[in-house]
Every structure is written in C-alpha cells, then in structure tokens.
C-alpha cells in the first residue's frame, strides 16, 4: 500500500491552497461551488480553478457570454445564470463542456436569439432552462446534439412558432415547458418523438386550434397545461391516447362546446379545469369514462342547466365547482351518486328553486355555496342527509322571509354557521326587507294563514256624501279591534288597529245596493294584509264616485 500513498501525496500537495482559491468577488463553497453575485462583474471570471464543478451567477452585469468562456473548466457540471443582463451568447460559449449536465439562463430581458449550434458541445446535458428571456425563434437544429435532455424549460420568452422536428432528438425528455410564450399554432408532428414525456406546459400562449393528432404519441403524459390560450373547439380525439393523464388544465380559453367523447380515454384523470370558457351546454356522457376524477371545475362559463346524470360514474370526486354560470335549475338527480363529494360550489348562478332531493345521500358533503342566486326559499329537509355539512353560504339571495324559511334558519343556528351568513337578508315581505335573517326570531317568519287571520267584515249600509260621519259598520270578530271611520267630500276613510302578528283579512259587504250608490266592489276580492308582530294600523280609503 505504501507506493499508492506516495502517489496521492504527489498529486495533492502542489494543488493544495490553489484548488480552493476562489475568483475575486465570488464566494466558493465546499471546494466545488462558485457563487458570483457582484454587480460590477462584466465577464465570466477567467481564474476559476478546474476543481470547481458548479457555478452560479446572480445579478451580475455580464452582457455577453464570450466564445470559450469556460475553456479552462471542462469539468463543470452545472452553470446557472439568474437575472444577469445577458444580451448575447457568442458561438462556442460552451465549448468543451461535455460533462455539463445542467444549464440555466434565466431572467435576461434583452436576450433575444440563440444561435444554432450553441448547445452542440453539451452532449451530456440533462436539464436546460432558458426562461424569462426574450427568445423569439428556436432554430430547428438547436437541440440536435443534446439527446440526453430530460428537462427542457423555455417558459416566459417570446417564441411565436416552432418548426416540426425541433424536438425530434429528445427521446428522453420527460418535462417540456413552453408556457408564457406567443405560440399561435403547433405543427401536428412537433411532439411525435417524445414518447417519454410526462409533463407538457403550453399555458398562456396564443394557440387558437390544436391539430387533431398533436398529442397522439404522448402516451406517458400525466400533466397537460393548455390554460390561457385562444382555443374555441377541441378536436374529438385530441386526448384519445393520453390514458395516463392526471391533470388537464383548459381554463381561460374560449371553448364553446365539448365533443361528447373528448375525455373518454382519460381513465386516470384526477384534476380537470375548464374555468372561464364559453360553454353553454355539456354532453350527457362527458364524464362517463373518467372514474378517477377528483376535482372538477367549470366556473365562469355559460351553463344554464346540466344534463340529468352527467356526474354519475364519478366515484371519487371530492370537489365540483359550478359557480359563476347561468344555471336556473338542476335536475333532481344531478348529484345523486356522488357519495365522496365534499365541496360543491353553486354560487353566482340564477338558481331560483332547488329540489328537496337534490343533495340527498351526499353524506360526505361539508360545504355547499349557494350565495348570489335567485333563491326565495329552500325546501324543508333539503340538508337532512348531509351529516357533515358545516358551511353553507346563502347570502345575496332574494329570501322570502316567511314560515317556509324556518327549517333553514333553525338548521343554520344548529351548525352555528353564523359568520358566513350574517349578510343574509330578507327581500320580502316588505316590512322585513333588508333585515338580516339570522337576527330574526323564527316567530317573525310568518305566513298568510287564513285560519289565523283576523277578519274585519263590515258593511256599509248607508253612505251619504253629505254626511260627515258614517253609521257604525257591522264588524265581525270585533272583540279586540277598534276602527274609526270618517268621510270627507267624496271619500270615506276607514282606520283600524289590530293587535295581531298574523294577517288581516278585510272583507267588504256591500249590503244594500240602493244605499251605497257608486261603491263598486266585488266581495270575492278579500283584502289580505300581512303584518308585523305589533298593533297594525289598517287604513283604507273608499272613493265614492
């Protein structure tokens, strides 16, 4: 063993202090990492010792990466540029860096072009991030030599079109991000060699239509982001090969309709977002082959109703968001079999009535948002089988505060869901308009119940316009009612005080036609007046013509 030790010593000794020497104005860590963040630095330092394998530049003033910048550091495995001011990369910048596995050049608003061949020396590159610059074009040969790439992130540039074949050499790619660019169309064969791709981000571009077969070879794909584009129609078979897809983001497009079987191959789909599109109807069978759907979001569309049974088959769904649509009513069995559902958003629709059975059997439901609808009442017992329900926002509905609201009011008090609904107010009847419902006692929730009504029946036996006073009229149930009458030129005034909280029925009995000239009145028209719980004043004016 002796000779070996000797050899090692010979190598270590001369290198000793120099190996750790760090470039001026940079910091070095653990003998292999260089970190440069000096804003006065204008060039990649030349004196980086070969022993360093990783180098990071943050907010320096480097404007140009010159040919052979890293010529003396062929052992580098990682180079990172964050928010420098790079304007251009000279041809051959990365010459000799065949060991480099990771390169990032991010946050240079003036970097607009990448020369063809710039990455050709990087034959072992595994991860390449060229993000948030101003790159406009990707030359078709740019990635020809970087066959080992697994991660390619190009988001936040100004790429407007990509030619067919650009990614053809990247057979090992598993992540491709092209989000936040200006892409208008995708060539049909662009991804055809990316058999191992798992994640594809195309969000926030200007794509208006997708070629029918563009995703056909992406059989391993799990995440597909298409949100924030200009898509109006989806080709029927666009996702038909994506059997491993778990997340699909289609929100913020202009999708007007969905082909019946567009999701029918997505057996593993768990998250589907279709928010902020222009959907006004959904096909009956849309979700019949997506049994693993976990969260479905359809807010900010134009849905008016939903087909009966559209969600049947969603055995695992936990959240459905249907808020900000124009839904006026939902079929009784809409949510029938969704035993796993915990959150349901129906706020900001035009729901005017709900079926008593709508939420039946949803035993795991914890939250239903019904705020900002047109509800005047909810049927008694509507939440009776929702044992776990704790939050039901109900504000901003035109609630009719009568006895039919007693159930929901008691239910709210029971689950102490008071904070959410402190703004829940009556729209009618008139005397309760604007009152916070939760501050009313249930005894204020009155209905017009004829059997509880105080009847005032009276007959005007003699009306003489010239008389200042009428004769006392006949009153039934007069025991606790006091009325006064007065008559002034051409008009008779009737005024009663009635101590009741229910309703008052006033019935005119014009007994003697001959003596009540000019009083046109049909006794079929009883006057029903609902009252607050206090002494009520009833004032009636009878005009004699």
């Amino acid at each position: 063993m002796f000779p070996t030790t000797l050899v090692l010593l010979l190598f270590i000794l001369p290198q000793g202090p120099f190996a750790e020497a760090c470039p001026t104005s940079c910091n070095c860590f653990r003998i292999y990492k260089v970190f440069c963040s000096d804003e006065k630095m204008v060039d990649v330092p030349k004196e980086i010792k070969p022993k360093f394998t990783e180098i990071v530049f943050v907010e320096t003033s480097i404007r140009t990466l010159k040919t052979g910048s890293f010529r003396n550091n062929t052992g580098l495995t990682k180079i990172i540029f964050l928010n420098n001011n790079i304007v251009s990369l000279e041809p051959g910048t990365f010459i000799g860096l065949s060991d480099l596995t990771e390169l990032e050049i991010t946050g240079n608003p003036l970097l607009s072009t990448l020369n063809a061949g710039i990455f050709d020396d990087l034959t072992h590159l595994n991860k390449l991030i060229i993000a948030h610059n101003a790159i406009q074009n990707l030359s078709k040969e740019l990635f020809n030599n970087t066959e080992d790439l697994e991660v390619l992130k190009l988001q936040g540039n100004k790429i407007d079109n990509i030619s067919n074949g650009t990614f053809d050499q990247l057979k090992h790619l598993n992540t491709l991000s092209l989000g936040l660019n200006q892409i208008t169309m995708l060539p049909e064969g662009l991804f055809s060699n990316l058999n191992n791709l798992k994640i594809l981000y195309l969000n926030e571009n200007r794509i208006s239509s997708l070629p029918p077969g563009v995703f056909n070879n992406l059989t391993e794909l799990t995440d597909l982001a298409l949100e924030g584009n200009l898509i109006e129609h989806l080709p029927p078979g666009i996702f038909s090969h994506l059997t491993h897809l778990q997340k699909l983001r289609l929100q913020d497009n202009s999708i007007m309709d969905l082909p019946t079987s567009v999701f029918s191959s997505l057996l593993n789909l768990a998250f589907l977002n279709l928010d902020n599109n222009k959907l006004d109807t959904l096909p009956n069978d849309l979700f019949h082959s997506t049994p693993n759907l976990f969260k479905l979001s359809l807010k900010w569309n134009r849905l008016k109703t939903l087909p009966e049974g559209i969600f049947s088959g969603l055995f695992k769904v936990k959240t459905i968001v249907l808020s900000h649509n124009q839904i006026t009513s939902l079929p009784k069995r809409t949510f029938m079999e969704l035993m796993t559902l915990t959150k349901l958003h129906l706020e900001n629709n035009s729901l005017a009535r709900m079926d008593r059975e709508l939420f039946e059997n949803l035993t795991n439901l914890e939250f239903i948002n019904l705020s900002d609808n047109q509800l005047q009442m909810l049927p008694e017992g509507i939440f009776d089988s929702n044992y776990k329900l704790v939050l039901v926002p109900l504000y901003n509905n035109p609630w009719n505060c009568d006895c039919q609201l007693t159930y929901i009011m008691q239910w709210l008090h029971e689950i102490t869901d008071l904070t959410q609904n402190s703004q829940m107010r009556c729209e009618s009847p008139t005397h309760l308009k604007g009152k916070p419902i939760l501050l009313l006692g249930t005894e204020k929730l009155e209905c017009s119940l004829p059997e509880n009504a105080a009847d005032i029946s009276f007959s005007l036996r003699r009306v003489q316009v010239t008389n200042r006073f009428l004769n006392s009229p006949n009153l039934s149930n007069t025991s606790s009612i006091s009325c006064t009458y007065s008559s002034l030129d051409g008009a008779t005034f009737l005024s009663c005080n009635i101590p009741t909280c229910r309703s008052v029925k006033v019935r005119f009995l014009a007994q003697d036609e001959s003596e009540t000239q000019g009083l046109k009145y049909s006794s079929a028209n009883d006057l029903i007046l609902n009252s607050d719980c206090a002494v009520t004043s009833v004032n009636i004016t009878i005009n004699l013509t």
Partner: protein
Amino acid sequence: MAERMRFLVNFFFLFEVTASVNFYHHNYEDLVRALYNVQNECPYITRIYSIGQSTQGRHLYVLEFSDNPGIHEPLEPEFKYVGNMHGNEVLGRELLIQLSEFLCEAYRLGNDRITSLIHSTRIHILPSMNPDGYEVAAEQGPDANGFLTGRNNINEIDLNRNFPDLNTQIYYYEKINGPNHHMPLPDNWKSQVEAETLATIRWMTSYNFVLSANLHGGAVVANYPYDKSRVRSARYASYSATPDDTLFRKLARTYSYAHGWMHQGWNCGDYFEDGITNGAHWYSLSKGMQDFNYLYTNCFEITLELSCNKFPRQGDLEREWYGNRDALISYIEEVHQGIKGMVLDENNNGIPNAVISVSGINHDVTSGEMGDYFRLLLPGTYTVSASAPERKSQSVKVTVGPAEPLQVNFQLQTDKALNVQEEKTPVKNLNSKAHLKKIIPRALRKNPRDKSRIGN
C-alpha cells in the same frame, strides 16, 4: 367557536387554488433559484434584495411581495417572515419557499383573498437567516442523530441568543416609569453580534415592520413574548407578559387555530393549551430575536415552532405545507387590525418618529419616515395620543372594531402657537361604518414620560 369558523371559511376559499409545487429540501442554490423563479414569474408584484451576507458569504435574500415592490406606501403596513434562523430547523425555510410560490401563483390566478392581501400589505420573506448552518445540517440529512448539528452559524454561535439584551433595561424601567419602547443599544453592540444578526438588525431598522414571525422547529406551538423571564436566575419557568399580552395571545392563537393541528395542544409529547405559550413560561431565553423586535422596533414578533422533527423527511413536506398554509396567510392578515393613520404638521407634512401612546398599554409605537403609524389593538375603546418634540400633543378616544383597522390621523401644531383650543382630529373609518368618537382633552393623558417630552 366563532373564531374557529372563520378559519374554516378561509380555508375553503384558499382551496380554490391548486398550486403545482414541488416538495423537496432546497439547498442554498435551490433556494436562490426558487426565489428568482418566483420573481420572474410575478415580476410586477415581487422584488428580491439581499440584507447582507452570512459569515461564509451566502446572501441573506429577501423576497418582497407588494403591489408596488420596493416602495413604502403610506398606511400600507410592512410584514416579515423569518425562517431557518437555526440552520437545522428547516421546515420554516421550506414553508416560506412554498408560500412565495403560492402567493405568486394565487395572484396570477386571481384569487381574491391573496390579491387583496398583496394590494394592502408589503410582505417581506427571509427564508433563511442562517444559510451556513443549513448547509451543515443538510449534509447530515433528515435522519441525523446530531440534534444540534447546524443549529448555530458557522462560528458556532446560536443566533437566537445573539441579539442585544434589552429585557434587563425594560424590566428596570417598568419599575421607575422609564421609557417603554425603542430601548437604546449599547455602544459596542456591533462588535458583539454575528454577521447574520447584524444584517438582520439593520434590516429591522430600515423598514417600519409592524408584524412578524420567526419560524423554528422542534416543537409545535406558537410562542409569544417575552422570552426572557423577569425572575432573575429562575430555575423554573415563569410567565413574563408584555404590556400587549392579550394581543400577543390573540396573534399566537390566530396561527395555532388556522394551523392543521397546532391548536389541539398535544404535540411532540408536550401539551400547550390552544397550542400557544408565553416564551418565558415555557423556558426563559435571553438575547432572543422576538423580544428584541418588541423592545427595539415597532414590530410585534412571535416565534413559531412548527414541527417535532427539526429536519423533516422530504415526504412529510407536502403535509406540512397544507397544515401551515392557511395559518401563514391568516397570520399576515393580522397586520390589518387596530388603528393606523398619519401624524402630520400644520402643513400636512408627515412627522416621523412621533410617539403614539395608548392609555392602559405601557408600550408606545412611533411613526415611520412618512409620518404614518400602525398600532395593533384588539377591539375596544382606547384613548390614543400622539406627541412629537416641540409640538403640542393630541389625544383622541377611539373605538376599535374587529375588522379593518380604524384610521386615526393627528395634526400636531408647534408648541409656540399657544392656541389652547381643542383641536379637531380628522378620523376616518376605513370600514365606512361611522363610529362615534370623542375628542378627549389632552389633560387626560396619563403617561408621565410623554409629559416630560412635551416640555422640551
């Protein structure tokens, strides 16, 4: 119960956003890349700045969120989170990275709660105050037995025992009715603190922070000041309340109740009622950062112990994030309570460093450079006064509600204008619900220290 329900409601609103985040331990380089990534994804609401460098030369990067990054807007409060002060307590660091990514994504997706938070608050996030210690701890990894490896900075100094001790002074002043805020520092303080501490203190004084939390690990509890016991050489712990004790308890409870399990009390083999504790009541700690915030600046800071395991396994990070996410947001929202306003001179110019006193609470705050001040208060009726050198001070009785902060402005005349009439104080409620306020003659003000100041 009502408090609990409110958190639940918020929880549901937040859940609308599905953040696509990766849960892994970020070393220094990963941390820097993650912060710059957020800054590039959300350039209009973020800014990155460095408050200085660690002993080994790593930057102490802060990510700022604001609708006007880099600018203090009058009446918009400044908030901060500090993580990873103990290098081996890494959950706070990871949570603050997740929080940064979440705020950016939620803002981009138009989440109402996050949008209004960022529009009304300037949020500063320092994910790692001890990046050198972190690298030492990370080398050991999650299952290391070395309980203390990487806790201290590279000079083996515990940064949470490295701030100037101001408690001794304040406990003395309490007895003799001395100053009750902004304790003076010893002349040689700079030579006695570590690089990380020095950078942090300079940071704390260059922004008028109102509320803060310092994220640690090793227990699960929200810990509020004072950390240092009043009982000298106490063998056992004793409760050491600040003049703002009820407020601090509410702040701590806000976090613990919005947290997935902290409020339950039983965690890591310890029990804390409501998941909160007074620092000194748990164990006495001298020269900590939390007490220093309260005694040297206007900032109210609590210390959050977030995980039993100081260096949780990567697989636990996602669960920890969802357990803490709403708490982290709810706690920032706490900066919007009590009163705030402008202290102006007769020409409507802001008066910096004016002293705002609240009767019954022996801890004053001061106005910032633009003359705006923030005084966190629980709902109630208070007599508040503002004073500044060579100006007549002014008092006003205010009723603080539970929601938005009440805006109470002061206009302080120079003392030469001996017009002893009652000054009208413009009072505006941001809530738009009118509150009745009476202007109290300044003779009712009680703080003797302030009287002496007015005399100057």
